[in-house]
């Protein structure tokens, strides 16, 4: 952790705004571009006020042209800038995958270094809620992680959001920065000023000896809730490994935890088939780590994400599902599942303050 030790309480969205401001301030090469970046809603509050603070030359709005905008930031990076591109939804980035996969990810490698580096950050907002439905609540994190040359970051806390955002902007590689929409409103202490959290290291969010629960982004929140409950009621202690960076993956931290607990649950906010959770399971098994029981994945079913809250409720695994998965694996505590506390309010918002409609 490099930088300030002082903290103040910020939301995840404010932490990203703060990090962006720090980058814009420290490095004249940084600029931000994306549809709506300077608008009154400021990408869910993550860019609010930046245009007036840093000027329209450095905080740019844009037409609906995801593909060309991605090429544009790649070229600008090659030309010595450090651009940050924002998509309001990961789903829109599907239009730009040719640039991301063929060009950004490979440029440094395929020209054997002589083509220069592509230091860009592409922000993509993932996550569910308020009836976003099939085309506005995908994850695709395993897609990006599958491509050699892309760093894939998915923080779970405001402090990490800031620290990893700054590290992403400073990184010489293209970074896919995934922000789960439900995290934007969550608050926590965030170091003030310059604060950098290196990419590629897991965070052990909680220590315990009974089971390793691997998660990233909003799944970490679910895992931690399950862990709190399990500790308080069932005397089951979780090691919660917050992956934070899906590529490069710090497998050693996961392996160390599994060596200790000998049980593995992977929670992943994504479809299961060929997803990131399977990769974690495969690595643990390939490594021959001793397990007391077969590993378990807690993921979405392999089906598109429905809009209706009635279906969303069964589609998305909950903190309670994590608890149940662990209970089954550990072979005890399941009797407490019935009094696992329901999150207050409707199932399709993270908290009662979540505004909707977007």
């Amino acid at each position: 952790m490099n930088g300030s030790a002082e903290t103040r309480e910020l939301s995840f969205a404010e932490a990203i705004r703060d990090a962006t401001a720090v980058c814009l301030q420290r490095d004249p090469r940084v600029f931000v571009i994306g549809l709506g970046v300077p608008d009154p809603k400021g990408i869910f509050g993550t860019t609010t006020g930046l245009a007036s603070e840093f000027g329209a030359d450095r905080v740019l709005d844009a037409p609906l042209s995801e593909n060309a905008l991605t090429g544009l930031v790649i070229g600008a990076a090659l030309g010595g800038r450090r651009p940050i591109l924002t998509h309001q939804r990961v789903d829109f980035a599907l239009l730009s995958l040719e640039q991301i996969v063929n060009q950004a990810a490979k440029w440094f490698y395929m020209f054997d270094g002589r083509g220069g580096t592509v230091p860009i950050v592409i922000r993509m907002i993932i996550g569910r809620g308020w009836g976003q439905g099939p085309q506005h609540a995908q994850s695709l994190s395993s897609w990006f992680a599958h491509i050699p040359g892309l760093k894939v970051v998915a923080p779970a806390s405001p402090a990490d959001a800031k620290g990893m955002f700054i590290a992403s902007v400073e990184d010489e590689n293209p970074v896919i920065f995934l922000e789960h929409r439900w995290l934007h409103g969550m608050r926590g202490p965030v170091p003030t000023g310059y604060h950098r959290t290196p990419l590629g290291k897991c965070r052990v969010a909680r220590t315990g000896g009974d089971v390793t629960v691997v998660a990233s982004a909003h799944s970490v929140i679910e895992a931690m809730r399950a862990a709190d409950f399990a500790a308080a009621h069932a005397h089951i202690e979780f090691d919660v490994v917050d992956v934070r960076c899906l590529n490069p993956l710090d497998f050693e931290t996961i392996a160390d935890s599994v060596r200790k607990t000998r049980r593995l649950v992977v929670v992943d906010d994504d479809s299961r088939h060929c997803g990131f959770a399977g990769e974690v399971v495969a690595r643990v098994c390939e490594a021959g780590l001793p397990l007391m029981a077969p590993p378990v994945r807690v993921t979405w079913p392999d089906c598109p994400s429905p809009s209706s809250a009635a279906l969303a409720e069964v589609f998305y695994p909950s903190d309670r599902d994590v608890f149940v998965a662990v209970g089954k694996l550990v072979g005890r505590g399941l009797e407490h599942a019935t009094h696992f506390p329901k999150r207050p309010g409707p199932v399709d918002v993270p908290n009662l303050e979540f505004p909707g409609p977007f």
Partner: protein
Amino acid sequence: MSPSPKPSSNPALAYGTGVPPDLKHLHLEMLRIRVIERRIAERYREQEMRCPVHLSIGQEAVAVGVCAHLQPADKVMSAHRSHGHYLAKGGNVRAMIAELYGRADGCCGGRGGSMHLMDRDSGFWGAVPIVGSTLPIALGLALADKQCGGNARTVAFFGEGATEEGVFTETLNLACVLRVPLLFICENNGFSVYTPLAPRRSPDFRFSDYVRSHGCHYFSGDGNDVEAVCRVTGEALAAMHADPGRPCVVEFATWRYYEHCGPAQDDHLNYRNQAEIEHWSMRDPLAISRARLIAAQPGLEAELDLAEQRQRQDIDAVIEAVRAGVRPSPETLPRGVFAP
């Protein structure tokens, strides 16, 4: 006195026959859409319609004026702001409201929400929220019709924002190359979410030239005057008829009165300038047609008011029925990932 239009029928459809449109019918159809959307906005605050909604209040004239030329067998596709198109095409109101409420009898079984509407029975072949995405799909529909020797009309509604996507020119070009008579209806309301045209198009950008350079017809008109919409659409269809296989883009200038997404107005955010706001507030498509109707026949005022009252009752009845309806059952979640 004309009967209050039934929620699931489209009186304007009678005009897809070459007969000049009847302003009263057009007005009532716009009114029906307005009343339904107003009611959606009001009741949205109850937080029971739990999906993003993009209201077309202010843009009803385009939907109604274009659809007045269409028959049920004709096909329409749209995007995120599609209530007006769905309703004007004769889409089932109850199924739409149920979809907004996430109910099992919603037009997508609750799986889509407001941004995903579908009613093939009435010729509404789908709306999806990815900007520009239905353009080539609509082209494919029209191609299928052509390949089968059919003579349905296919219409794609979209906002001016969609024209910025590469897929727009690719679709236009394919339509011209394959000689597929797709009718593209662009509703230019000047904004893409909160972003005005300036950061999206050069001041020298000429949409008409852009379209025509592909080898495509281009027409334009006042999107807030339903008679103008009807007339220009008629001209476009006539041009397409005279030169079969040449597609056509029609651009209508219009304005949305509500926020981009959600049930409120948002002019206090100052992303639109006061002069524009005032200009367009004087050009409410419903006020224009109503004034015209009453000027021609002052006695109509009471009839229109009564019709509006009935329309309110209709939509309220629909909403109450929908709210009493069932939610999709959890066991249906995996149904249909693959078609059988």
